[in-house]
């Protein structure tokens, strides 16, 4: 990347760890790379993949990577444990993680889950979400059996080993299940008392944020351009993603198309610029996590994020 920058500008290397393997949600990053937006901003972006969904936060905090994609509640939890990370931008502004039941199930709202089994990936936040949703809907959260299903949310529900799953994303699990001929109903957490948190945020360490504001800004400017590009021409955006990935893994076009279609509205922020964050959102999320005992003491909402 260095040599074809052409303008003699020195490039700053920035490493970013994805929340998961590359998919439609990351197409704005790849578009930025492909179109040379990052180079224009003097950023040499390097994308990495995690071993575990928790690794990005730990590694960004310890300075092993500069940036990472993670989840808003995860950032709150980290900060509550003195792990020095801050959110820099909200990439997906609404929850993707929703409660899913088979379409032909007799469960018509979360309260019907009383006496049923819900599969989830042993993440405490999912436990809290189910409790809040069932409780708000007038059901008894104590009556819901939670089963850790590890990585296998989809097989768990499609082979009817559980009645519902929590932790699945509407742009991934739902799409894939439907593709395999297993349509699902989803219950939106926001409809049942869970705050409208940011599903995906860009995080960095407090130290990095303090020391490299310009670099972060440059990075984000390029990312914004990338996002604009994808928003304008989603199909081309996906083309880039596919091209970038063809050397490693054959993604499925129809799945990613559908996924991006779902994602784009959830990533756009209307009048505000892409990625902007509000203190209210942080406050609500912190409050909810405190109520559900996901964190033990209150943390400052405005310290949790920085704005460009």
């Amino acid at each position: 990347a260095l040599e074809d920058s052409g303008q003699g500008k020195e490039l700053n290397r920035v490493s970013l760890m994805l929340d998961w393997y590359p998919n439609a949600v990351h197409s704005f990053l790849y578009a930025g790379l492909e179109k040379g937006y990052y180079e224009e901003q003097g950023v040499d972006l390097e994308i990495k993949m995690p071993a575990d969904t928790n690794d990005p936060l730990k590694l960004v905090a310890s300075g092993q990577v500069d940036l990472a994609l993670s989840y808003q509640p995860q950032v709150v939890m980290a900060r509550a444990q003195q792990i020095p990370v801050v959110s820099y931008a909200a990439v997906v502004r609404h929850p993707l993680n929703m409660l899913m039941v088979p379409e032909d199930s007799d469960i018509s709202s979360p309260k019907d889950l009383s006496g049923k089994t819900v599969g989830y990936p042993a993440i405490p936040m999912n436990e809290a979400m189910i409790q809040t949703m069932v409780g708000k809907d007038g059901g008894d959260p104590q009556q819901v059996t939670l089963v850790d299903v590890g990585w296998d949310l989809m097989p768990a529900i499609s082979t009817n080993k559980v009645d519902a799953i929590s932790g699945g994303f509407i742009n991934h699990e739902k799409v894939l299940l439907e593709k395999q001929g297993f349509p699902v109903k989803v219950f939106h957490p926001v409809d049942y008392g869970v705050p409208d948190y940011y599903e995906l945020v860009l995080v960095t360490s407090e130290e990095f944020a303090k020391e490299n504001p310009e670099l972060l800004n440059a990075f984000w400017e390029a990312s914004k351009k990338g996002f604009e590009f994808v928003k304008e021409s989603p199909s081309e955006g996906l083309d880039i993603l596919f091209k970038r990935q063809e050397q490693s893994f054959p993604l499925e076009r129809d799945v990613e198309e559908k996924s991006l279609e779902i994602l784009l509205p959830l990533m756009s922020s209307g009048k505000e610029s892409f990625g902007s964050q509000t203190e209210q959102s942080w406050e609500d999320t912190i409050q909810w996590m405190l109520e559900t005992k996901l964190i033990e003491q209150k943390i400052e909402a405005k310290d949790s994020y920085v704005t460009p």
Partner: protein
Amino acid sequence: MKKNQAILITVVLLLLGWELLIRGLHVPMYILPPPSMIFLSLMKEWKLLIFIHLPSTLLEVLIGLFLAVLMGVVVAVLIVFSRIGGKVLYPLVIASQTIPLVALSPILIMWFGYSIWGKVAITVLISFFPIVVNVVDGLRATNEEWIQLMKTMGASPRQIFWKLQIPHALPSFFSGLKVAATVSVVGATIGEWLGASEGLGFFSRRASNNLQADLLFASVFLLSLIGIAFFLLMQWIEKRSIPWFYQMKKIERKR
């Protein structure tokens, strides 16, 4: 006495070194906590760990190891004594070892649901292989002269097997058993990722998801203890089962 002291000192030094290294090098505690922190959270959560999670993992390891030994020996015997079976079975057994869990776990869930048997299955899968290889090698190594002698006595293949090849393969079997006993703990841990609501593997994953490295390592500590305990148990059984093998060395060295 003196030796035990030396061991104690070494262990203390190691722990101290670890503690100092982490504090000195500012290794982030959420990545690798110092022993003191691990110890504190072990103290804090010991009831939960010892009474809820430990027994459940132990049970998986016990059942899994038992079945692994059974299956390992049976498979090894088939490999050694059935020629075609051996040529087909051995590669299958090897192949079974290389299947990553992501491919296996949906199948196991389909078969076993979230019962203990899915976890046991993974434990068995991981730990039966060292037993197979060692028993196969042990059985194949039997001295031909002894086999000949037993043949002249009119021994049937079955008798040669039980009275000669099995005792002769015991030392080798125990090498495999010690490996199996240790990796069975990993097996149960991984098995719990399949889906569980208790067990040290489940606990460690939750702790990691909760970014609680101290609790994570508290459970790792207990897992290691189980591993060491099982290993030592097997070693103890080994010494009891093949006294002729050890007695020989001991007596001749004592003098």
